[in-house]
């Protein structure tokens, strides 16, 4: 079955399926290729199959159907310890009865590496994560962030070409998490390692990855770089899952090239980019990001459709203002504006008109 795949596909899932009970598929027909050196994040709600995919790649779960290829070779029947894949676990899984240095030396020891070479590599790996002074400590003597660094160093010390990370930052507080996000991406790019990163935190996915695979219901909903994912979601699920999002439902009344007109249920009309709609009369759910909504008519195009809106709440958040509106019966319509000196602060009860550029508003599937 080892096919000569795409030449730059370092990791490939080919029609992979996974079922635990023989009745339900946890992973349905997964196809994915990753070039060498890429940082790919699997993002999705719990139960979407992302961790199962990671475990299949690591070798702790076997695929029910399909092939997983590493560097063009099927690894379905290779046991985990022969795959040479580094892995960082959610709870770090540092061996509590060994010191930090012993933990790092473990993968080198089982590879029968000589002591002097081993010591040197351990030292280099610890220095790499700024933990050089902690080699003699036990994992329980380190803070969560330090343990995280050690776990990372241990996964990298034997120089694997592929590293898997299973929600590695889940247990850290916000500030530390942001710092570690930066550290991990820096290391991954410096060392040129191919990384598969699993998380349910969309901010993490957007800030760290080259590409993000959004999982839901056992399938990849969209696989794109972060900016494309955020600005051009391919379906309602991705639009909802990534970032904050306003939705309005209606029927397509006009399609011309890359713009369309949608009539909302209360009769108002708006401009949108057709994504998942093909013909007039189809029901659709349009999605607009809160920061792309305009209430200053000068910034809109000539003849653009606008909607009536009532300000319900104004929330001061420091760097931005968050205003909740009632639009076409939807009371959770949010707009975000930058806190600039000339910015208008909308008062609750004010009646305004809002609009947007058609390319910022995407007509997606209605489900």
């Amino acid at each position, binding site marked *: 079955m080892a096919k000569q795949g795409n030449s730059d596909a370092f990791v490939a899932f080919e029609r992979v399926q996974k079922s635990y009970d023989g009745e339900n598929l946890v992973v349905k027909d997964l196809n994915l290729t990753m070039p060498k050196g890429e940082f790919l994040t699997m993002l999705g709600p719990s139960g979407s199959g992302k961790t199962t995919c990671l475990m299949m790649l690591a*070798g702790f779960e076997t695929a029910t159907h399909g092939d997983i290829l590493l560097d063009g070779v099927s690894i379905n029947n290779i046991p985990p310890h022969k795959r040479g894949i580094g892995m960082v676990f959610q709870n770090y899984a540092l*061996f509590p009865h060994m010191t930090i240095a012993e933990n790092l030396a473990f993968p080198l020891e089982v590879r029968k590496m000589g002591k002097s070479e081993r010591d040197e590599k351990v030292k280099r790996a610890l220095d790499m994560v700024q933990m050089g002074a902690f080699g003699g400590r036990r994992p329980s003597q380190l803070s969560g962030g330090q343990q995280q660094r050690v776990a990372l160093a241990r996964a990298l010390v*034997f120089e694997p070409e592929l590293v898997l990370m299973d929600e590695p930052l889940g247990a850290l507080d916000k500030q530390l998490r942001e710092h570690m996000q930066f550290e991990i991406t820096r290391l991954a790019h410096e060392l040129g390692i191919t990384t598969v990163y699993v998380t349910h935190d969309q901010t993490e996915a957007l800030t760290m990855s080259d590409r993000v695979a959004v999982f839901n219901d056992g399938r990849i909903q969209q696989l794109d770089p972060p900016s494309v994912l955020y600005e051009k979601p391919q379906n309602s699920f991705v639009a909802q899952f990534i970032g904050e999002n306003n939705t309005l439902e209606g029927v397509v009344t006009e399609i011309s090239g890359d713009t369309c007109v949608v009539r909302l249920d209360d009769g108002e009309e708006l401009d949108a980019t057709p994504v998942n709609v093909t013909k007039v009369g189809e029901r659709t759910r349009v999605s607009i990001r809160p920061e792309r909504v305009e209430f200053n008519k000068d910034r809109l195009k000539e003849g653009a459709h606008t909607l009536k809106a009532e300000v319900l709440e104004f929330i001061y958040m420091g760097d931005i203002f968050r205003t909740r509106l009632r639009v076409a019966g939807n009371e959770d319509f949010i707009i975000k504006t930058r806190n600039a000196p000339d910015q208008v602060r909308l008062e609750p009860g004010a009646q305004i008109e809002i609009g947007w550029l058609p390319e910022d508003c995407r007509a997606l599937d209605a489900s």
Partner: protein
Amino acid sequence: MSDASATQNGPVLAADGTPLKRSLARALRRQKMRALMLIAPLLLFILVSFILPIGDMLYRSVDNKIVQNILPRTVVALADWDSTSGELPSEAVYTALAADMKEAAAAKEHTKVGVRLNYEKPGVASAFRKAGRRAKKFDLEAGGPWKEAFLKIDKKWGDTEVWRTIQTYSPPVTAGYFLNAVDMRVGVDGAEMRPERERIYMALLKRTLWMSLLITGSCILLAYPVAWLLANLPMRSANMLMILVLLPFWTSLLVRTSAWKILLQQQGVINDLLVWVGLVPDDARLQIINNQFGTIVAMTHILLPFMILPMYSVMQTINPSYLRAAKSLGATNWTAFWRVYFPQTVPGIGAGSILVFILAIGYYITPALVGGTKGTFISNQIAFHISTSLNWGLAAALGAILLVVVLVLYWAYDKIVGIDNVKLG
């Protein structure tokens, strides 16, 4: 703290001006009193039913006031006698003995001291019994000379060894029971080993320790896989298995031991099976009970839950991701187990081993029932001295030695493994 010491000198004061320490102590006193009241019933119960009796038993292992109490004059008179001279004590000693014996016989206490001294010098009891029978009619004024009178009653009264024994055991406290418990005795030149054929207790103690060690070892081997299954099976099956592990606990110890008797005896289930299969000829059935093998098998079975439970509770806390991590780092299944999983289960093994070993070393019923003569433990000998030979002093000494051995082993274990490394859950 720096604030308080900067603003005021001397001790920190509470708001009402009393020193903070005293104020705090007063506030805590009520709580402490309440806590004490709550544990008082148990404390009292343990004191009365456990600590006092054990203290009393331990005291019996050195108590020797009986000789002084019953033969007060003899003890004083005998103090000057030189036991190495080879000569019998003077007439004065025999006179004192006559007076003591008359009194003792009247109070019917002469046999007690005879029995006591008989532990040290077999044959003394009969000399005291015979002398006591006559002593009631002794005429202390007109009788005598007493030396000849006693020699006529029993010629043992002319044996310097008998007198040496009385002299040796006249102080109120003695090491005799302890010496006896380690197969020694007080000879002419102080403590010496008993003759080869009289040595039993050291061998018995060694056997007890060795067999307890074997039982602990076989418990570890059998319990480890079961505990692993318990910790790793899905909830439902694990609960079922747990019930099977606990089932023996709910059965009487006597019933379980008797069951082993039925299984292991020469006409028992196992021998029948082996003969039927043809592994063993009918005329050479295996002797697998009433010996050490029987004791080890039965006690391993009975003590197994005490090994499984601590192991299980420790294994339960070991996250399966450790094994996965080890494998992802390149370790084979065996290396992952041996280098990563096993070391983390050592505290459970330690806890189980201490529990099983200490229980085994003092076990009584099972070795008594299935041990025969070769498979009994030191506790069986203690029980024998308590209830049959009535030599409580020796029983207490053996018990004290057992206690010390356990404490020493516990101390050694703490030094080698570290008691902090023992986890019951």
